[in-house]
């Protein structure tokens, strides 16, 4: 984005064309100001976004720009799947009520359970049955072919994919308790 702005500055003709085309300029990223934003819920339960002195979006789609490395910041807000309103860099600056709604919406979109404790990994016929505790509750799932279905992300993050297409996150396997780690260490 920064680059694009620079080139624009060097070629004044381009700028005039842009200003002619429309108000909502596609080439400029909009960063939203947390103090201008208010999230509310409609009677039907939909998350609404009010931008001060501007518009009210009846349904807002939230996405993390860095869901793995920085899930708390850089949230893209969109009016529908294709139309981004802008990026909110730091949601913690929102009011408490708005932040709560935003977090609920994020939780809806990002399901990936985080494994907190591994009770057992049992193998039968090449299918490993995992019995784990996640922040969403205790769950048992099947993983076929551990080598292909455990993805490592540096430094020590693991993603485990089960046979039904669910994905489970172990943010840092070094921080698991000894018993849990023992269950998986030979697959690392």
């Amino acid at each position, binding site marked *: 984005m920064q680059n694009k702005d620079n080139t624009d500055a060097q070629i004044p003709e381009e700028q005039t064309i842009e200003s002619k085309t429309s108000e909502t300029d596609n080439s400029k990223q909009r960063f939203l100001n947390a103090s201008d934003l208010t999230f509310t819920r*409609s009677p039907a339960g939909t998350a609404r976004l009010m931008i001060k002195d501007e518009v009210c979006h009846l349904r807002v789609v939230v996405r993390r720009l860095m869901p793995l490395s920085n899930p708390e910041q850089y949230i893209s807000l969109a009016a529908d799947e294709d139309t981004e309103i802008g990026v909110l860099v730091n949601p913690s600056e929102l009011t408490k009520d708005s932040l709560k709604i935003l977090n609920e919406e994020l939780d809806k979109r990002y*399901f990936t359970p985080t494994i907190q404790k591994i009770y057992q990994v049992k193998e039968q016929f090449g299918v490993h049955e995992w019995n784990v505790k996640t922040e969403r509750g205790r769950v048992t799932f099947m993983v076929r072919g551990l080598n292909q279905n455990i993805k490592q992300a540096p430094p020590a993050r693991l993603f485990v994919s089960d046979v039904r297409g669910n994905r489970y996150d172990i943010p840092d396997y070094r921080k698991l308790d000894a018993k849990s780690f023992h269950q998986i260490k030979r697959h690392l």
Partner: protein
Amino acid sequence: MSTAETPTGALDTLPKSIEDTLNTLEIEFNEIRFAVRSDVISSGTFGEEWFILTDVAIITVTGSGEVLHYIPYKSVLAIRAEIVVDAGLLVLETEEGTVDLIRYSNSCAPKFGFVARYIGDEIDYLKGNRDEPPIWDYKIEEHHCKSCGLLLADEYSPCPACTKKHKIMLRIINYVKPYRGRALLFMGLIISGTLINLIPPYFTKILIDDILQFNITTPVPDEQTTWLGNIFRGFQPVLLALSIAVGVLLTVQLISVVLNIFQSRVSAWLSFRISASIRAHVYEHLHNLSIRFFDKRTTGTVISHITEDSERLQHFLLDGMSFLSTQVFMLFGIGTVLFLMNWQLAFLILIPIPLIILGGGWFYRTVRSLFHRAWRRRSKLFDVVNDSVSGIRVVRAFGQQTSEVNRFDDANTDARDYETHAELIWATYYPPLMFAVSLGSLIVWYYGGFNVIGGGMTLGTLMTFLIYLNMFYSPLRYISPLINWASRSMTAAERLFEVIDSQPEQSDNGNLKAIPNISGEVRFHNMTFGYDSHKPVLRDINLHVQPGEMIGLVGHSGAGKSTLINLICRFYTPDSGQLQIDGEDINQIDLKDLRRQIGVVLQDPYLFTGTIAENIAYAHPDATMEDIITAAKAANAHDFIVKFPDGYDTEVGERGGSLSGGERQRISIARAILHNPRILILDEATSSVDVETEKEIQQAIDRLVQNRTTFAIAHRLSTLRNADRLFVIEKGKGVECGSHEELMDKKGIYFKLVETQREAANIRAETQVVER
């Protein structure tokens, strides 16, 4: 919701308790049509929630029967299964706004995807947007073993529980059958080799006890007789015995060497033949499998099936089998001899055995996983090297040498640490393990020595016993890694058989229609298809193409154009509705006939290793040189081929690396021309080349499409100007169909696409002018 028949093949059974609770509540409905269970509750934790479809409304309830939503059909505008990260969400558009109805994990996504599609169609039908009511055709995507119910990877995989390990061994033995003479010889050699090896220690006993006991008094040489006489004078029978004993030992060892040579030769001969025939069988079968089989597996997995697994199996058959069988025979043979010699001692030496087996088992498991981890770090290290060396120009251009070196250092340190750790463990635990093995002989030394001193046992017996003992323990030492090796090889064999056992793309059940000469009529009727059937990529496609017609497929990327083409090639079969060629359902047509008459020109044409001529004649190896040249000429390829020093004999190298994109494209067109298909598919054939080359290729294509039914995909709409009709696909649905002029007049989606491209082209033209 009144028209469609009650769905059968219901998804989940609503618990009686919830049904009862619903009946007691004052909720308006007459009949529950079906219920679907979700595994996530609205707060986002795992749990139970129910989606219930009644005759008048959609209801969701918690696991305890508490109603969360009650939404009458009347107010529903649309329903969709939204895919979020690692889960799903059923969303209703109602007159009051959007409702996030129910959450579910990916385990339930197929069910809810189907529900959304079905209800969506039903609503469309009620509103008159659809001619026919939807058909309840829910297919469970999961495949369970028919005999034991175990969840399988896909419908093509055999059940691992029902294919027992010993059955795999039996199947391998099946491959031995053609060579049973040699196999018997092999077994004979192993048995006799083992027996022969039992002889030398016994002679040790004779040597010590019966021969070496004698003290020969050296006679005083008599100067009267000759040197020869002196020898004879000193001759005593015991020396003869000694010579005989040593002679026997020598003979035994010679025989053993000969047996060994033969055994290794036979083993090599056998194992290479067995693994080669398994490999051939797998490879042949692979080419008959459905494309879906390859979708579910990466190319790497499939390649490793053929190479690594069969190599592993072969290695085991070659070395492992003979080693294993020798060792097992040895174990039993020596065990018997030991017990026969002295059963008390034999019992004593059994004491350390559990220790050896358990300790050895633990040791090899640990060491193996450690070495595996080290190996993975090492391969990561190679990845880093590969990455930065292949991208060396980028690294230099951005001045990132230091950071690349650091990246390597990190990986290198990591690999170093893991490798050191593995070696340290080995170094620490291997000696104690060996000590445990030697414990047995200490027991024998003590107990046996005690007996020898006491006179209950001869020294020879003790020595022999010790030698046998050593021979007895050595197979034990290897038993754990051997079992490991065997089981890994059996897994490799299992994976190979998995390919062989997978269902072929088309099984000839005798009903297949042979169509030797396709006229080229293609008809889609209400056809729906998705790579996962709950996520349709194409919906209700209706299109009737006349023989010889050229259809341009237009739409945004991801709209489903390439999928449509995959279906025409019958890489996949429609989920519902029909696809007919010459009035025959495509599933009923003999694939050989179909594929012989379909030709494909892709964006990035795949050329095989070989010469240009071989590549052009790929589908017709018996084509004459005249045919090849004519085809090349028509494809505008001849002129540049002639300029190569090796002409038509030019090696194109891997993936045609030595040719430019435009050249490869024209060769692939020549290949299609020579193939002379009735149905031709052009998938972005001209998008990867410059404008000049495009003209040449376009010309070649124009010649190629004559008199053939053609389906062409192109992003540059101008390349479709020769199409008879354009079929516009938008989000999986056929939305417009007609000639360029008709669609331009209609001012619909096609019109917009053309306008956008025209603008883009103008901008491009302007910037080019500015640059000059």
